[in-house]
């Protein structure tokens, strides 16, 4: 029996590792390709700026890749480390891989948008090259926060000791914790990238607007990140709440439902808020005098688009605490 459990844990770790880096590679691949595409366009528009564009492209791609590197770290840990041999650990390891894999998907795609738009901006307005690169660094780094949340949840799933908890509802809670943050991070990562891309376009069009565009970009990104934060909150509750052992699977089903509800419910609002941010920021440069009004309208629009993720969170909380 002990041997079988050991094999189960190893198998779950390998499965998790495969899912983590497999899914994690998708996002970064798309994002980096998008950046390179824009860089090609930028160079053909202004060949004499090829050096600047190329440098910026490489920095941007390196940032877009960091989400995949987080996934790689988790996958390596899952493959190389020795874990305790019990069934609940096996579930936790598989959940860690799934969480990191999905979590790296969005930020990888998202970080490609500001990088690509920055390359385009450099060829359009070479004088802004340095402020574009700096803002791109900030914008892309903020994109990675949702990947960092997923990594934190994955590390908690891997390194905390769950062996004292009863298998039946608690394994489902751990799995749901992984799903919640991992899935919710997809939308937020893409959304934050869209917003940062809009800021790049505005800076290239209107170099004087750097300060205002950066401030609005950070606010827009922060709001687009909210679904991932709700996902993190639900994951934290699921990770730290210990359930008494149960015979029926009804609690387990409710907990899985909670994770799925928050995870899937967070995808759309994240992308949607990002789109709101992208257009608000894009038009900021064309009409700088009404910047305050644009930022306010963006926030109201984002708040409305966000409401569906709040419904998802309410349902998840009801499933955790009431059912």
């Amino acid at each position: 029996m002990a041997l079988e459990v050991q094999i189960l844990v190893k198998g779950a770790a390998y499965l998790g590792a495969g899912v983590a880096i497999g899914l994690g590679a998708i996002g970064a691949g798309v994002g980096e390709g998008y950046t390179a595409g824009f860089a090609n366009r930028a160079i053909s528009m202004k060949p004499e700026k090829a050096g600047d564009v190329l440098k910026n492209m490489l920095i941007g791609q390196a940032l877009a890749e960091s989400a995949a590197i987080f996934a790689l770290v988790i996958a390596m840990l899952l493959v190389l480390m020795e874990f305790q041999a019990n069934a609940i650990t096996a579930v936790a390891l598989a959940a860690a891989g799934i969480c990191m894999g999905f979590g790296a998907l969005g930020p990888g795609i998202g970080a490609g948008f500001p990088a690509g738009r920055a390359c385009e901006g450099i060829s359009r307005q070479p004088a802004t090259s340095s402020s574009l690169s700096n803002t791109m660094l900030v914008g892309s780094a903020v994109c990675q926060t949702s990947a960092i949340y997923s990594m934190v949840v994955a590390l908690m799933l891997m390194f905390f000791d769950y062996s004292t908890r009863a298998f039946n509802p608690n394994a489902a809670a751990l799995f749901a914790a992984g799903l919640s943050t991992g899935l919710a991070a997809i939308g937020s990562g893409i959304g934050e990238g869209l917003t940062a891309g809009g800021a790049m376009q505005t800076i290239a069009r209107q170099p004087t607007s750097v300060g205002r565009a950066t401030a609005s970009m950070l606010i827009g990104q922060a709001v687009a990140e909210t679904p991932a934060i709700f996902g993190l909150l639900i994951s934290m509750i699921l990770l730290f709440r210990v359930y008494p052992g149960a015979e029926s699977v009804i609690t387990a089903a409710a907990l899985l439902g909670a994770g799925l509800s928050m995870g899937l419910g967070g995808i759309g609002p994240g992308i949607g808020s990002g789109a709101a941010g992208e257009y608000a920021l894009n038009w900021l440069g064309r009409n700088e005098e009404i910047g305050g009004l644009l930022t306010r309208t963006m926030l109201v629009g984002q708040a409305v688009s966000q409401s569906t993720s709040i419904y998802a969170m309410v349902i998840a909380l009801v499933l955790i605490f009431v059912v």
Partner: protein
Amino acid sequence: MEDLTTISQWVFTLGGYKIALNSVTLINTWMIMGVLVIFSLLATRRTKLVPNPLQSLAELLITTFDDLVRDALELDDRRYFPLICGMFMFLFLCNVWGIIPTFEEPTKDLNTPLGLGILGFVISHYSGIKFKGLKGYLRVYFEPIPFMFPLNIVSELSRVVSISFRLYGNIMGGAIIIIVVSNLVYSLVLPPFLNVFFGLFVGTIQAFVFTMLTLVYISTQIK
């Protein structure tokens, strides 16, 4: 990994109630407040037309945040400026505090961001009532249709959750990643870079984001 979940507390009973104080967070918060007070005293003592480095740092902070507050609120006076500027200075120091060995970021304890989030929430709603009157303030909750009232309440409350968990998640996430990576590479080369990234870079951005969101919440209430 386990030491992250253990919180050192002073527990004592007062009038039959058990009171627990998070000692590490409290000590670090008071040290940060001390640093801020000393900085403010040194920067504003003997101000000159040609400023010394400390004075120019203070002037830079004040002019930047004065512009931001003016931009967002469009008020004639500066009544919200001290709150916003002070909040940024405090949070910035809190977030970079962990770079110094043996010190811990107070923002790594959920209570600090949550407390500040509730502070911003109460101030923004109080401002809403003060500027628009109770009727105008309440009307917003019944828009676009009265049926939306409970959902509007939930979405207002979720702002406190999102603003405080954003700060907490970033700082705590950085701390967890630094601990795990340090263990894996036996504290060679990588951790200082991670400290700079998560402490200085992410810390500054998140302090700014928290401050700006508080400002935005106030501005949406008074307009």
